[in-house]
């Protein structure tokens, strides 16, 4: 039996108001894949950030290869042979692949940059592990799947013996996931030990040798894929039995509410992001848009909601064209929008909760009359929504920034649902949210549909799209490449469409 490479003992990390890691013990054997399973906020990423030197633990010890180590910074971690592929990639978009790989580990004399020999090594590593990538390409031109390869190469270039992967499959299509798993198995065979962080049960079951489950900062237990099943893991993760499926009645579509005609939208980098997209959403149905992130979904949503002017095409709400780039017109016409980036668009962090609950209506009666605000009405309105949407908060006057992610998201949902709603555009509505809030938000979305709203759901979580949608559209490189019925859609087939392989999917 192999000796443990890593042993973490009683790691404790406190942040103001929460204990993120509470006396966590975790070990890793040489050449194994040990999965760290837990829902958002369970403390997985915190634990790994401690191991990688980004945080310092308040208590506890880390033993690496039989020696006690203190890791003050990523620099120390790298020197100890630890590599990490972060959930949000740490690649500089404006630099080339090679430049990104050598950053911080540059070679060359007198400070003059040497890119020639590193370039050759990058190519060699890519070849050895099947991580195809052009060493000279600018990172911003690469699809996310390829960017992930660059991240892995970056770790291997630094001779990582322990590799941490934080939610590595979040941005991949099912086929790309298979390919990543093949790479991981190749790495393990060459003696690399891997910590695989995930909240997805299926993947953990497929790849891990061992599984450790975290909940609310504590280790709940350890098991192996052979001993466990998905239902057992799910209840370990959440602490109670979980409904893995959303219950809903068949849709009863009414008249067309949203219709998008031949829409063309540019990205921030002035590339075509949405390329001639047309579709319709009817009252009483949920249309889900599946696709790997970065295939134009964000820009599509922004164009529909008026945040980004399209260069071509039209958006019609109940038969009337919406003026371009005028969010207020969309709001007045009965559109509600749960934005994908809550912190950027969804809330004003320093404002109290009750202001955030009237962000788009404060200028109108009953909240303002003749230009003067009625704070009392605003607070009453807030108290009602807090009750109705189960927002956990001391009162309506705290800053929204002080709430947990799940409660912030429920507040955003509450605000958007509190207006008369003909169309709901929900983009990544459950991102970074705990399971309880996910169930609640899903239920409210279905309820909105049943009350006659048209719903456009955009999500990178294929499972979310599959379980909520009545019809599924698949987006790839700015185009709609396929449409399937929500009840009969096949997961593998949608996965192929997400990679642009329409022919294979239809056969």
């Amino acid at each position: 039996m192999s000796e443990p490479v890593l042993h973490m003992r009683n790691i404790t990390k406190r942040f103001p108001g929460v204990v993120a890691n509470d006396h966590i013990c975790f070990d890793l054997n040489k050449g194994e894949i040990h999965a760290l399973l837990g829902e958002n906020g369970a403390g997985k990423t915190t634990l790994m950030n401690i191991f990688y030197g980004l945080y310092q633990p308040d208590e506890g010890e880390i033993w690496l290869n039989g020696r006690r180590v203190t890791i003050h910074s990523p620099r120390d971690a790298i020197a100890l042979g630890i590599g990490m592929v972060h959930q949000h990639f740490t690649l500089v978009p404006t630099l080339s692949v090679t430049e990104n790989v050598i950053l911080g580990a540059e070679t060359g004399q007198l400070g003059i940059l040497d890119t020639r020999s590193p370039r050759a090594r990058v190519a060699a590593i890519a070849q050895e592990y099947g991580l195809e990538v052009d060493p000279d390409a600018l990172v911003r031109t690469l699809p996310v799947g390829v960017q992930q390869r660059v991240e892995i190469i970056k770790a291997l270039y630094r001779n990582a013996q322990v590799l941490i992967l934080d939610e590595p499959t979040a941005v991949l299509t099912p086929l790309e996931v298979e390919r990543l798993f093949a790479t991981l198995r190749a790495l393990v065979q060459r003696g690399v030990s891997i910590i695989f962080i995930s909240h997805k049960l299926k993947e953990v079951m497929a790849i891990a040798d061992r599984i450790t489950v975290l909940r609310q900062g504590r280790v709940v237990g350890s098991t192996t894929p052979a001993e466990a099943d998905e239902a057992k893991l799910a209840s370990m993760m959440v602490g109670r039995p979980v409904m893995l499926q959303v219950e809903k009645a068949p849709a009863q579509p009414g008249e067309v509410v949203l219709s998008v005609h031949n829409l063309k939208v540019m990205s921030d980098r002035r590339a075509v992001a949405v390329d001639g997209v047309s579709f319709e959403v009817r009252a009483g149905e949920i249309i889900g848009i599946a696709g790997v992130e970065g295939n134009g979904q964000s820009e599509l949503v922004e164009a529909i909601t008026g945040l980004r002017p399209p260069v071509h095409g039209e958006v019609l709400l109940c038969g009337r064209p919406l003026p371009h780039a005028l969010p207020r017109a969309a709001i007045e016409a009965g559109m509600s929008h749960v934005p994908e980036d809550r912190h950027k668009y969804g809330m004003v962090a320093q404002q109290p909760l009750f202001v955030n609950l009237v962000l788009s209506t404060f200028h109108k009666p009953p909240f303002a009359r003749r230009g003067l605000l009625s704070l009392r009405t605003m607070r009453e309105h807030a108290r009602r929504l807090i009750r109705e949407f189960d927002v956990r908060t001391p009162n309506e006057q705290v800053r929204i920034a002080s709430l947990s992610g799940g409660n912030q998201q429920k507040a955003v949902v509450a605000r958007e649902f509190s207006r008369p709603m003909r169309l709901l555009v929900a983009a990544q509505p459950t991102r970074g949210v705990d399971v309880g809030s996910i169930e609640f938000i899903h239920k409210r979305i279905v309820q909105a549909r049943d009350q006659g709203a048209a719903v456009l759901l955009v999500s990178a979580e294929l499972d979310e799209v599959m379980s909520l949608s009545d019809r599924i559209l698949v987006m790839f490189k700015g185009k709609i490449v396929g449409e399937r019925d929500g009840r009969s859609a096949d997961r593998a087939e949608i996965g192929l469409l997400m990679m642009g392989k329409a022919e294979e999917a239809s056969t």
Partner: protein
Amino acid sequence: MIRRWFWLGSAWPAVASVLMALALAALVMVITGSDPLAAYGALFQGAFLRPGTATRPTAFFETLVSATPYLILALGISIGFAAGLFNIGAEGQLYMGALASVSVGFLVKGLPWFVHLPLAIAAGVLAGVIWAGIAGWLKATRDAPEVVTTIMLNYIAYAVVNYMVNGPLRHTGTAPRTPDIEPSAVLPTLLPPPERLHWGLILAIACAVGYYLLMNRSALGLQIRLVGENRHAARYAGINVNGTYLIAMVLSGALCGLAGAVEVLALYRYLPTEFTVGYGFDSIAVALLGQGNPIGIALAALLFGAMANGSGFMQFSAGVSNYIIAVVQAFIIVFVAAPGIARDVLVNWWARRIRRKPAAQGGEA
């Protein structure tokens, strides 16, 4: 524990900044061989206590006279801050406001005062609006950074005033200045001579009240604050962000222009080539110190007015250069901008005192 109660209340950082700045300036005085206690005593006396005589106005009223433009300007700058805009062009807007008011004040003749005076004030406000509006419009339509454009507009305003006063608007005397304004355009004093306390103070206080209503009670004020705190979320919520920038800049410029109008219509009653150099910049410090709160801004304006007014007497009676107040102001804004500096220094000082005590007891045992 100390940390917690010591820093209760948002006014503490500002007060601590002022105290620390005064202490540092005292250190500078000791180094340069003066007596800081005598200097600050004289400063306080010259700013608040000295009684008036038949020819000399009362010190406290003069402090209010000095504080008036600071208050109006700082309110204007604070509106910009709330929208996330840095109107560093208060100085230029003040100059243009003064130029416009004086022009109306002496070019237009034969009007009764209740028409002429409001007209002259309105001209100053309008000039400030236009001057700030240029920067606001460029920000709203072209994304041009207002920090740079307003500074550029300051230099252009200096040149325009200089040109007008030396050229088309020059009076017939020797010094380069405009003619006196008509008596009907004078903003009157509140007290008989030699006091100079004038109606500008009442206007300034009215502006502070208006500022409070705007920022805390009106939908427009909330709109401005939302844009300033998160313009993306504001746009998402249907607010016209660029329009809000323009509105905030225009309101800011209106107040700065008003400050210029008040200065020339009440005090100078003509326009010299250079006047009040630096008021616009000092007021940025006043606005930072006031932290967006109208009472805080008023107190900060009073402090700066007191320093400006008392420094002359300080130089006269304590022999300390009146420019030492520039040092005090410089340190104040450093500490106000980074309250953490003051906190760290003071908390460390407290912590060391507390640590020393048990250590001493341990030594006895």
